[in-house]
């Protein structure tokens, strides 16, 4: 175990572990240092040379990502000398950059753009009449598009396929100003985590085919949520926006760092699961296929409950928030119904892998187990009240609360999806995580808790 020592950065004393990376300390304490190639999950590579800092006693500036912290170290992260060095390096990066920010999807979250505002803002000394051109629209596969001209060759994407997925699809080929990221001929990017390279890419070279050209990033609002693809409970940002004259819409999911759960990444299935969220939503309250008033529907349900006294089963979906499950247990008790939360539907051994994906494809699977709920199919065939469980059951009467269309029930209530609602989920390791509400629709569907409140009256 390395000792904790003190070092000085810009005149301030910081405590750090001996022989840890200097850049980690700078990032941790939010000391501004520009970098392209370094990434906490991929380690130091030292190829972009942007993170230059001055270390007292050393002749030349050093890169912070490859400098180990030693006792008595004194570091300057800013100053005229360092700024000049960074400006010069940035100038080299920009020689062949197409500067097509107005049409680039990364604009607004681009490191190159940010660093230019910090260290550029000058007329370049280098006067290149014709820039080196490369392919602008390379479909790498797996929803990832590559613009080789925008690339700064930081090698984050290639290191991701080497070190994280071990699938080795990407590499930097050629050399000099001909060097570019590429796949091998006929071997596209194909791994279930491929789209993470889009987040890793510090510039606009790798963009998501799914998200590009749909929305400018500065219009998006982010909500801290939990992915509901499986029981791993990866932390995500739900990026959404309400464009003029339109409804609040989710545009993408992005991984949110949580070292205890998913690190920096999410799987592509989870990332793209936002699409299913918006499609085929149940919006109307239906009685035998005809739209009815919500109050009438509530009284109808109450009458049904009266009618089937002692012969009622409440089915709970394992994707519901813990707060909702608990409220449903209380509700079931008041109407003297049996409760079951079938899990069979959610077991998918093919989905599981060593990285993040879990075979239990429901977000609150663990909660159902923790609460000791019955997971059997319902045996009472009087009245079934199904709370968003996707399989259909047959009974004398079926009432269904659904986020999406497709339920076969005589009475259907629309409910808010998880992006329109907040609550707690317990992941497979027993970690309780809170997922915040992201989307507010123009005419929102009530949440389960709101429906239960109405049924009480």
């Amino acid at each position, binding site marked *: 175990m390395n000792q904790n020592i003190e070092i000085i950065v810009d005149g301030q004393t910081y405590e750090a572990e001996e022989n840890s990376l200097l850049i980690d300390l700078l990032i941790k304490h939010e000391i501004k240092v520009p970098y392209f190639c370094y990434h906490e999950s991929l380690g130091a590579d030292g190829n972009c040379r942007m993170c230059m800092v001055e270390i007292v006693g050393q002749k030349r500036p050093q890169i912070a990502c490859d400098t180990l912290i030693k006792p008595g170290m004194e570091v300057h992260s800013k100053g005229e000398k360092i700024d000049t060095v960074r400006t010069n390096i940035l100038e080299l990066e920009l020689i062949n950059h197409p500067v097509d920010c107005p049409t680039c999807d990364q604009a607004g979250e681009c490191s190159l753009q940010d660093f230019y505002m910090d260290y550029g803002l000058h007329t370049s000394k280098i006067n290149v009449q014709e820039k080196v051109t490369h392919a602008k629209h390379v479909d790498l596969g797996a929803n990832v598009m590559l613009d080789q001209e925008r690339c700064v060759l930081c090698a984050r994407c290639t290191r991701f396929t*080497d070190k994280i997925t071990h699938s080795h699809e*990407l590499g930097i*080929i050629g050399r000099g100003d001909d060097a570019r990221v590429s796949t*091998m001929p006929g071997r596209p990017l194909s791994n279930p985590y491929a789209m993470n390279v889009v987040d890793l890419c510090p510039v606009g070279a790798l963009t998501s085919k799914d998200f590009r050209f749909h929305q400018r990033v500065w219009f998006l609002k982010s909500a801290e949520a939990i992915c509901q693809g499986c029981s791993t409970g990866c932390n995500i940002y739900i990026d959404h926006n309400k464009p003029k004259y339109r409804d609040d819409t989710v545009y993408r999911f992005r991984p949110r760092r949580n070292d205890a759960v998913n690190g920096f990444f999410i799987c592509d299935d989870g990332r793209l699961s936002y699409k299913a969220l918006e499609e085929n939503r149940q919006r109307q309250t239906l009685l035998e296929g005809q739209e009815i008033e919500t109050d009438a529907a509530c009284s109808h349900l109450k009458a049904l409950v009266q009618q089937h006294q002692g012969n009622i089963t409440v089915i709970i979906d394992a994707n519901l928030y813990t707060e909702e499950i608990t409220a449903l247990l209380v509700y079931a008790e008041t109407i003297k119904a049996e409760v079951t939360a079938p899990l069979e539907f959610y077991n998918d051994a093919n989905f599981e892998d060593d990285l993040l994906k879990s075979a239990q494809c429901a977000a609150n699977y663990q909660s159902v187990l923790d609460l000791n709920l019955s997971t059997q199919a319902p045996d009472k065939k009087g009245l079934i009240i199904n709370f968003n469980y996707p399989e259909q059951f047959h009974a004398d009467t079926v009432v269904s609360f659904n986020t999406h269309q497709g339920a076969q029930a005589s009475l259907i209530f629309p409910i808010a999806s998880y992006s329109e609602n907040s609550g707690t989920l317990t992941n497979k390791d027993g970690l309780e995580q809170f997922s915040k509400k992201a989307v507010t629709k123009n005419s929102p569907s009530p949440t389960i808790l709101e429906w239960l409140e109405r049924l009480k009256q």
Partner: protein
Amino acid sequence: MSFTFTPENIKTIAKLKTRYPKPQALSLPCLWMAQYQEGFISIDAIDVIAEVTETPAMEIYRVATFYSMFHLQPITKKRVMVCKTLSCKLCGSEEILAHLSKREDVLVEEVECLGSCGSAPVMQIDDLYYEDLTTQKVDAVLEQL
């Protein structure tokens, strides 16, 4: 896979393997062998080399694209490499180059220093150097090929 090393090459690989601490070090020798054997380096050959060197195929592909002396496509014309560095330039390589570029039966490439400054200007065809070049000498050399 349609590529296999010849028995002699397989023997050479086995011999070379004992020389290096890691099989990855065989990447360049194997690439050379493949190129001599087929005239270019096919993707199939890269896969075989990846297996021999216990290295991802992408790594071998990167090495093959990095060095300009490796070809990833079959070459139909004779490849003539003309040195473009100082001594050769001073001794008239530009004239040689201009002369060569008029011919359509050869593929002319400018390459970095061939390390034979004493006999500049120099060109290389396959593994042979042709030195102290004049335009007449160039024609004579290409005639004989």
